[in-house]
């Protein structure tokens, strides 16, 4: 049985190796830039940079759902009738939209470390606690993203007329169903351009996490640049990779946008 699983895992990784866009047999680094510096494997830095590309993409994609969900609930809290809820949500957005992302990252990284350390000491564990850079980056970027996201969603909420809710209630749907069936589909359509901009900002902010040691594109290229003394070439490659990410996400977003507008196209 275990042999079967290892065979499957081997086949999957072999398949991924074949379609790997950077380092595979038909990858960019092998086809076009197959020089010594960017070669994959031990000879060059191609595979390290490809790993950084993967880490950057993973961090951004892992942060997105966290930020979206939190942002949605904060947007709901901001238009609640309850004063204390509104106030708490406004404090949150003011705080995290006003702080530089780098500072937020440091505060989360060191603050979490202190918190966890104190907690561990209280439980009785004596030893140093290291916070994972990926996790700290995910929290810091997610917090910033959710603060901006709540603003975008709030203005989208304002664009949906009150009659839409009333129509939902008149049909006998309760609050959650109205939100899910009537408001959310329109909300996505209105908020999508703003969310696209936020996604681009998130993608660019992931570069900051390299400062606390996450091996993303920037860190991997920095290491390569320091070792080989070919800084310009490596940073140019890193810039190109970010442009590729930006281009890919603009393609995805235009796809999503036409998908959300599929009902309007027929008219």
């Amino acid at each position, binding site marked *: 049985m275990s042999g079967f699983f290892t065979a499957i895992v081997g086949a999957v990784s072999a398949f991924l190796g074949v379609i790997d866009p950077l380092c595979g047999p038909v990858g960019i680094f092998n086809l076009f830039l197959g020089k010594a510096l960017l070669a994959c494997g031990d000879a060059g830095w191609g595979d390290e940079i490809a790993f950084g590309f993967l880490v950057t993409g993973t961090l951004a994609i892992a942060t997105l759902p966290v930020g979206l969900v939190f942002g949605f609930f904060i947007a709901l*809290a901001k238009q*609640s*009738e*309850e*004063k*204390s*809820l*509104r*106030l*708490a*949500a406004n*404090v949150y957005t*003011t*705080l995290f*939209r*006003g*702080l*530089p*992302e*780098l*500072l937020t990252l*440091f*505060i989360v990284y*060191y*603050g979490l470390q*202190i918190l966890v350390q104190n907690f561990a000491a209280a439980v009785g564990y004596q030893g140093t606690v290291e916070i994972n850079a990926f996790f700290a980056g995910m929290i810091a970027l997610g917090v910033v993203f959710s603060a901006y996201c709540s603003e975008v969603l709030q203005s989208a909420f304002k664009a949906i007329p009150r009659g839409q809710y009333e129509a939902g209630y008149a049909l006998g749907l309760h609050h959650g169903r109205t939100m899910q069936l009537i408001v959310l589909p329109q909300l996505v359509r209105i908020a999508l351009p703003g969310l696209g901009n936020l996604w*681009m900002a998130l993608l*660019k*902010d*992931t*570069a*900051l996490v*390299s*400062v606390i040691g996450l091996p993303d594109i*920037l860190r991997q290229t*920095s290491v390569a*640049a320091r070792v080989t*003394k*070919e*800084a*310009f070439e490596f*940073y*140019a490659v*890193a*810039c190109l990779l*970010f*442009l590729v990410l*930006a*281009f890919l996400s603009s393609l995805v977003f235009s796809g999503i946008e036409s998908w959300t507008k599929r009902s309007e196209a027929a008219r």
Partner: protein
Amino acid sequence: MSFVTALIAPQAPPPAPPKPFTAARFFGNVFLGVWLALSVGIFMMIVDGWDPAKFTKYGPSYLSGLGVTLTLVALSIVLGGLISLPLAFARMSKNPVLSWIAYAYVYFFRGTPLLMQLFLVYYGLGSFSAELKELDLWWFFRDAWNCALLTFTLNTAAYQAEILRGAIESVPRGQHEGAAALGLPKKVAFFKIILPQALIVALRPYGNEIILMIKGSAIVAIVTVFDLMGETRRAFSRTFDYQTYLWAALLYLVIVELLRNLWNWLENRLTRHLKR
């Protein structure tokens, strides 16, 4: 026959029905409590670790760091604004080569992280030090502050060009036609009719751009410029005191909030003729 002999004394209104304790109220109170607890905790931490010696030692360097941040942002916003003018016109021009070049410039600077651009200029151009020495430009690129200024100027020029272009294109066509019908030359029409209306539209994005630059300027600390963030990191590396970051956070928050409120006031003031 009966009639009223005594007036009914005025009655107090019935008591208001009690407010239901809803889930929203519960969560509102909980989250406010969390904020309160956090702020009290931070306050206690500051009081607990209060050290006048540290304050007198690092306080002035925080202020000088703040000065560096503000100078850097102000200079790059102004210089970037100057560069953004030809860029915006190139972007709107009918010449495809010119507009394509401007588009590529804007796409590059808006599509890559500011930190990456800074590294490209500071470390990347640093690897051409021999060539730069020959061109007699090495004195400029040797200093991290100059590199940061150059990067920020180029970066904000791209963003400001997009703001300007969007604002100019948002002025309705009829305004151009009206100016032409009055026989105004193109140049006068642009400066007296189009630009004033465009700048009102651009006011809010410009404010956002300045705030973004102030927040973005924190990254120059990574290339050894001692701005507010750089001084903070230096103080933290010497004292290992978490408070250093909280003080920096407070300073950044105050600046950003001041600017935001200033911009709200400015916008209200400048658009008062548009209010009905």
